[in-house]
């Protein structure tokens, strides 16, 4: 399966505020507020400002949260990346 790389938003574009189980993200470019839950904020944080694909991010998530990066983890992260792209928070590189 193709695993495209996604580019994160520029460092100063997003304002991210954790509100309990929800995270509110203000996108200064679109002036839109997005409300997301895990693992969206974690994915955005782990992109580290660099374009990455789902396989790389699944590995980083596994390392950061002590999870097993096996099975369909990559496919799940790929879906989440696709959703973040639909919100305009990441873009296909």
């Amino acid at each position, binding site marked *: 399966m193709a695993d495209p790389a996604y580019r994160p938003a520029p460092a100063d574009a997003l304002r991210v*505020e954790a*509100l*309990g*189980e929800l995270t*509110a993200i*203000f996108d200064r470019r679109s002036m839109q*507020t997005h*409300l997301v839950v895990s693992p969206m904020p974690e994915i955005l944080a782990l992109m580290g400002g660099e374009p990455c694909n789902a396989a790389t991010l699944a590995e980083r998530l596994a390392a950061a949260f002590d999870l097993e990066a096996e099975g369909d983890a990559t496919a799940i992260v790929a879906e989440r990346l696709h959703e973040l792209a639909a919100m305009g928070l990441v873009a296909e590189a």
Partner: protein
Amino acid sequence: MKHSTRIAVGPVQFRIGSDWREPIAVLERLYAGYPKDEDRPADATVNLFAARPWRRLIRPSVHIGGDFVVPDALPLPLSMGLLAAEMGMNLQVALGWRRHMLLHASAVARDGGAVIMSGESGSGKSTLAALLGESAWRLMGDEFTLIEPASGEALSFPRAVSLKNEAIAEMTARVDPARLGPLLAGTPKGDIRHLIPCADAIAAMREPARPALLLFPRFGGEAAIEPMGEGEAFVRLTEASTNYIALGEPGFAALTRLVRETPAFGISYPDSAAGMMLVEQLWAEAMR
């Protein structure tokens, strides 16, 4: 406009014009005790005008105009001029105000702290605020509460309280009749009667208060209190704010701060007395 008046409610200065004398006369009586600031330019204009010039003479009806116009706003019979003025004032503030984040919420204050109550119409937020405003609390507003983005403080908007249906009997039994406006029976919103807030609420209308409690009342069912997380309170208040989107990042910052710093609860209550007790109970717990 043949007739006009100036009204200041909280930080908002209105100019209200009308083709008829009646609505202006009633407004002037309801707002007689409010501080005047004639030198300041009006922030919002509400015009009540005849549908056609000749309609002023035959079967008059009122249209609402001003800085913002909702094309489908109902033409109301002239007897409803007061309701039209109220709707116009709400509309101007809800759509036009940018200096503060506007919440569709009632509020009362005590000891410099504000209890902000947000809910759908029918949740009883206005009646609860009006009743609390007759006790040890200062009524900040029955319909709108403003949040100052820089300080996070709540500002009051104590317009004349719009009592609806059952709330009319509940309040008229408790207050001096001189504080009541005319009964507007059978309006599109049901029966309506305006109540002039207590003198202390009007005198203190420019005194901010620190948000101390966020309540989301729901009328009906057993008395119950349910703590609400920051995320849910945030979502509900974005829905309750009429200008959140227009404010951009300052609105986002003000709202995240508000839900982080202020404990939030959903409350259900079977009657006003139970609702007031829940507010008092949560207030006592928050102040501990």
